[in-house]
């Protein structure tokens, strides 16, 4: 089986996701990048599950998808609230945690 290709794909997706999370200022795009990271993990889970003939991988992938859905829901709500309060979804402006 061509495990390497799957892993490479996942790695590429993960890196794109990380890049998005770290660099983009737009809250929506950051959320989408998080989805990319999660999906990279999902690909890994399914790929290894198939390799070892274990259904656990697929089960965990499904579990992740469910969690991701919830996370997107909350994330979107946060972004929406942020927009309402500040008329902007630029993350660089949200620095209330500054010490």
């Amino acid at each position, binding site marked *: 089986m061509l495990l390497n290709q799957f892993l490479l794909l996942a790695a590429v997706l993960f890196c794109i996701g*990380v890049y998005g*999370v*770290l*660099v983009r200022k737009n809250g929506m795009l*950051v959320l989408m990048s998080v989805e990319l990271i999660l999906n990279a993990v999902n690909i890994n889970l399914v790929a290894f599950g198939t390799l070892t003939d274990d259904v656990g991988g697929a089960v965990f992938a499904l579990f992740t998808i469910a969690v991701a859905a919830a996370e997107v829901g909350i994330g979107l709500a946060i972004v929406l609230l942020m927009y309402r309060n500040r008329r902007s979804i630029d*993350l*660089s402006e*949200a*620095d*209330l*945690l*500054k*010490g």
Partner: protein
Amino acid sequence: MFATLAAEAVSTVTTVTNDAAWFLENAWIIPLLPAISFALILFFGKRMPYKGAEIGITAVSVSFILAILTGVAWLDHRDHFELEKYGEEQAIAVSDGAASATDTVAYTARFVAAEAGEGGAHPYVAVQSSTQWLQSGGIEFNAGIMVDGLSVMMLFVVTFISLLVHVYSTDYVGGDRRYTHFFAFLSLFTASMLFFVLSDNILQMIVGWELVGVCSFALIGHWWEEKPNSDAALKAFLTNRVGDVGLLVGMITLFFAAGGGKTFDTIKINEAVVQGGVSHTALVVAAACLTAAVMSKSGQFILHTWLPDAMAGPTPVSALIHAATMVVAGIYMVARLYPVFWEGMQIEGSSINLLATVGAITVVGAGLLAFVQDDIKKVLAYSTVSQLGYMAMALGVGAWTAAVFHLFTHAFFKANLFLGSGSVAHAVHSFDMKKDMGGMRKFMPKTYVTFVIGSLALAGVFPLAGFWSKDEILVNTGGWDLLGGSGAAPGSYTFHFVMGMIGAALTAAYMTRCVYLTFHGEYRGGHAAHDDHGHDHEEDAAHGHHGEPHESGPRILYPLYILSAFSILIGFVNLPPGFLAGSKKDPAGWQERFLHFVEPAGSSYFPAVGHATPSWSLAIVASLVAVAGAGFAYYYYFIRLDRLSKQLGESLVAIPNGITTTNVFARAGHTLLVNKYYFDHLYTGIIAGFTKGPLARAANWINQNVIDGTVNKAGESAVQAGQLVYHKIDQAVVDGAVNLSGRVSDASGEELRAINSGKVQNYAALMFAGAAVLAGAFVILLAL
């Protein structure tokens, strides 16, 4: 090794009983009464008609009577107590000791022989009764009393002098602002001192030792409004504390070293030492440390400086505490633990040791200092130091009985002198002999007589008290082998003998000077009303002191009469053997009675101390020396200075002493003086002048500057060191380190704050970076 064997050969014979006459077993009541009196005076004294004095006097009187009865019981006990009474197993234990040749065994054998053979001779058996006091480490420690000749003698001295001082004080400090407190502390002092002399263990001795010290502190500082008084009180307490370091270390050493260890019991410790069961090193350490304690408490060089300053206290206090009782606590302690010193200092067969030498130096050093004092109490204080030196020296040379006997006689005549000086000071309101006294003989003839008797006794004039005791000390130094000699003396302490002789001459001389300046010549006082002993001014007016001084009242005079009588007679309780032997009035019944009743010779807790044969030749020579000393002083003051002052029509204060006289002579009719007093000039100007002038002044200078200076310097540098440590180390280094650690975490927080941008993405980046590093580390670890 050898000592251990010997100890095994002689199974312990304890010459101690707990079954004796009622008064001997219950002597603890004697200190208890003044202690109760202290509490009563403290709480109720001010409300009493005589402001508490009556409570103190009653308690001390009862104690005195009890002390007398105890003494009588002891005399009976000493001569009639049957050893079998206290248990056969102890009495029989002296069996085959004679086989071995050690001192211990020989002594035990002698003891047996005395018992079995002579029949009439009774052993010296101390009475001890005790009860449990505390427990530690599973061992129980007792508190109790030990009654033997020594403690009975001290009971008598302390209660007797204390009673007289109580009576004397009702007049002397009458109307004082703290009259009640004064009597409270007198009671407490009496209780503490009695507690000290009765204690049957060294722990109690430490307790009593410190308690008398604190009473001394409180009474020296009685008039604490004036700073010099409180300074003197502090100096006394602190100097004594320095000596107490020695006391603590010495006593602790004994506690662990003696007889298998862990006992405070005086008799057990002494027995262990006598039987040779204690390591010599421990004894040397203990004896040396305890000598330091003696130096502070009993005013020996170089820790004596507090004692003259302690004269800042009221005069009755000086008489009771700083002459008769408290200052002899050190001497008593040595006498009580004598085996420790006997073995530790190796007194027997030697010719020098620490204790004796300290004593000898004190005798002469303090005697010289007494010459340059203008304050009558300071003369007496230095005299006390000097006499305590005699006692310490006597103990050091092995003359136990002589030392204790001198302690006994000294208590009476020195108390007499102090109270006499107080009587004079009471009249002129000053202690300054040169400025405010002189010619007092006319105003106070009765005080004069008692003072002269005291002076003669102190100077050792035959047949007054001081003669007998001083002579006994000198003969026991073993330094006199001429004509009858002193063969049986424990050692041959020639140096100490010479110092003792010089001391005798000095004593006679400075007392002559003191008597002259105070009582002879013309009255120089009356120009100022000093308020040196705490009288209120209305009191002065009532006494009418603005005119001439007058004789003191009966409450001051009667104690003086009684003490004078004792100063004359008390020496007869220990006449040397052979004295008046063969004459019709054979006082054999008085020969060596003191020795018989006081010295625990033949008891299990006392070493075999030899006694020198008394020597007529020595007695005569010593008397001549004293008379010579007195003669010189007499000539200088009574004849030369007296005539000079009359011829010049000036007060003798205006005539400078000693070498410096030369210049004045030149100015004020020198021809007459130079021609007439050529020899005088040689003797008084050069010899006596040198002694009184530069030499004594040098001694005084050393005393004031070097020794005292060192004490002050030590105090100052302790404060400076304290300041240094506090400011430089405590505040800067230790505290600084604490503050620094705080500041470091603060600063590092400041640095790390920059990372805390508040931007989620920065945090995420850090998290990823961290995760990446951890993952990397994980991979590397797996690879290994």
